[in-house]
């Protein structure tokens, strides 16, 4: 009989994390996790602990770390407010299928249900927004739970797992079996795998007379690591490829078959192409409402094939004619062996004509409205050119997010971080922190609007404390720009509570010891970006941008892709 040493739960926890190859965690200590923090320094040589200034910042940082590395990010908060502050981060990871483990402290078991100090039913709160959750009240369960949590978070369709530890767990002791087995009879990471016969049915769809195929590459293609397989598939069949917001790095943007981003604020050519397509091949995209617009119009005259690891996504939003469930990389590898190649020259001629007519990856639809303020797409293109598309960019949410997605030409996979499904402002800066710590050799930029930047600006203290060289760009327009755009275009210019009175961002950054430059001209912007890049540590460039530079095209709510508004006048016509 093997003798396992008796250890306190706090030690078992740290060692279990190390066994899962965790190198980094973001956490803020509090009452019920002090016994854990009493041990964390002991394991500092294996696990680096970063102290953010708000748990949400730590959660977003763990999320950003996970997106760039592919490894599960770890964030920790104490009970009560520490745990509730993590809610947005958890929901964000869930919506975007990011592998993360969120750890919260809980009051001792004897106090649960007494409305004790800093007691909240956080397991109850996170149930709808996690892949799975655990409550642990004794050291004997820690090894198994940690092993299961990381396995669940990282396999199949990734997602957040939440573990709530009662204080008893840290203080109790148990024999520590490092070879613990998991107990997950109900969990199948890949519940279904499409057959070769299913894949071969795709050939019939591609050979239909006059078929007009398009590939929508989504986040699933990136998560699966199927970049080469997707490229081979697209090239084999000469199919135009569009990306969703989170699929932007799944297919090389420099490739002649890439037609831009699809969706509510996507490229005109991509939207018109998807609208006209008769065969839509979704590869890891879930047909989110931002992509489809009005669903009844979207599905008209189209056949749908769906490569997807999560069977519950197939048929959820649009009816699927050919479900191709399973790991995307595996499915595409088989498809590349089984299917013969195709060409669609007439279809490409039509697409090229759209590029001529509407412009492609340029400013045809986005002329500058005034010469007083800077234009955001031009600034993003400048940043893209100056960094040669090599940087990791974490954008916030709003117009800055859409401009970054449209005009930064990402060269590498896993380089664009954005709160896609949840759309949480304040994501940019903390996510960039996580990305920089995960891949320190890469240049990392956080692009935010002034609204989103202020939501987690406190994390500049984290940059300062740990000398994390994140470069920041703030698009200052004195407004919650995206909401303002909706008010202007869809609510008769009734501006309601979207004006922002900002602090002096240069002075604010200086308070954190971060150099900052203000840009009111493109020359100043270029100089600011260059100085920021040359700075050894963090740096900030504040660009004064046009508050009424609308992000266009835009598909109004409940409109079809083909009814996208290309100009401001189109909104009046659309009613």
């Amino acid at each position, binding site marked *: 009989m093997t003798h396992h040493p008796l250890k306190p739960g706090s030690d078992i926890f740290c060692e279990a994390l190390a066994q899962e190859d965790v190198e980094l965690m973001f956490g803020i200590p509090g009452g019920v996790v002090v016994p854990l923090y009493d041990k964390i320094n002991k394991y500092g040589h294996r696990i680096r602990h970063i102290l953010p200034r708000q748990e949400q910042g730590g959660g977003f940082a763990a999320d950003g770390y996970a997106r760039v590395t592919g490894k599960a990010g770890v964030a920790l908060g104490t009970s009560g407010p520490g745990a509730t502050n993590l809610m947005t981060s958890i929901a964000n990871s869930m919506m975007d299928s990011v592998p993360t483990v969120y750890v919260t402290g809980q009051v001792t078991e004897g106090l649960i249900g007494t409305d004790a100090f800093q007691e909240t039913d956080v397991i109850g709160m996170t149930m709808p927004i996690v892949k*799975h959750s655990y*409550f642990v009240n004794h050291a004997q369960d820690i090894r198994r739970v940690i092993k299961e949590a990381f396995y*669940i978070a990282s396999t199949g369709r990734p997602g957040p797992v939440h573990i709530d530890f009662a204080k008893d767990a840290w203080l109790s002791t148990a024999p520590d079996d490092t070879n613990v087995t998991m107990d*997950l*009879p109900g969990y199948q990471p890949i*519940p279904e795998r499409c057959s070769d016969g299913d894949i071969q049915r795709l050939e019939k769809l591609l050979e239909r007379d006059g078929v007009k195929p398009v590939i929508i590459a989504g986040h699933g293609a990136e998560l699966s690591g199927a970049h080469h397989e997707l490229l081979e598939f697209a090239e084999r069949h000469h199919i135009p490829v569009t990306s969703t917001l989170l699929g932007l790095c799944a297919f090389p943007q420099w490739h002649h078959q890439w037609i831009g981003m699809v969706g509510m604020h996507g490229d005109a050519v991509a939207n018109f192409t998807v609208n006209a397509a008769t065969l839509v091949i979704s590869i890891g995209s879930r047909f989110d409402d931002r992509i489809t617009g009005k669903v009844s119009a979207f599905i008209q005259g189209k056949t749908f094939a769906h490569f997807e690891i999560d069977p*519950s996504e197939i*048929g959820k939003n649009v009816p699927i004619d050919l479900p191709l469930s399973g790991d995307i990389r595996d499915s595409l590898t088989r498809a590349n062996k089984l299917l013969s190649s195709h060409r669609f020259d007439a279809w490409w001629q039509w697409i090229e004509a759209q590029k001529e007519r509407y412009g492609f990856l340029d400013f045809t639809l986005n002329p500058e409205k005034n010469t007083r303020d800077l234009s955001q797409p031009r600034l993003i293109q400048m940043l893209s050119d100056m960094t040669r598309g090599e940087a990791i960019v974490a954008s916030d949410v709003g117009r800055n997010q859409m401009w970054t997605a449209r005009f930064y030409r990402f060269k590498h996979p896993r380089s664009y971080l954005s709160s896609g499904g949840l759309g949480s402002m304040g994501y940019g800066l903390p996510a960039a922190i996580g990305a920089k710590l995960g891949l320190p050799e890469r240049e990392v930029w956080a692009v935010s609007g002034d609204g989103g930047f202020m939501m987690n600006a406190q994390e500049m203290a984290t940059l300062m404390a740990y000398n994390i060289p994140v470069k920041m760009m703030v698009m200052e327009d004195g407004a919650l720009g995206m909401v303002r755009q909706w008010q202007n275009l869809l609510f008769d210019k009734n501006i309601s509570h979207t004006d922002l009175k900002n602090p002096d961002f240069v002075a604010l950054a200086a308070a954190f010891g971060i150099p900052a430059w203000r840009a009111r001209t493109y020359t100043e912007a270029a100089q600011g970006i260059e100085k920021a890049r040359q700075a050894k540590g963090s740096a900030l460039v504040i660009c004064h941008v046009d508050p009424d530079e609308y992000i266009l095209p835009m598909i109004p709510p409940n409109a079809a892709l083909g009814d996208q508004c290309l100009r401001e006048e189109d909104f009046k016509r659309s009613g």
Partner: protein
Amino acid sequence: MTNIEYHYYWLHLYVQNGVGVMARINVILRKFGVNIQSIDVSVAEGTSAFSNIVFDLESTRDEHGIGIVMRKLERLIPVVKVEWKKVADKAKKTSRSAAKEFEF
């Protein structure tokens, strides 16, 4: 007075026996607006590690729609097996007749 068409389903779940499993299932059912009309839970024969839960469900979702709900249930970690079928549609009920049914 609103005419609402309901569909009725029978659902059997084979699940791990533990605290919070029913809560997780109900999160899904509530999210998709599925009403539980009856529920029966028992520990599985021969093992206390698993339970059988049988539901009678009412929903405005048709079979395609309820299929989506069932696939979400399949994704729950403690759920080992899902079986379901549509049972005979009951008559359409109006909100007024439904209220009358429960007049005291």
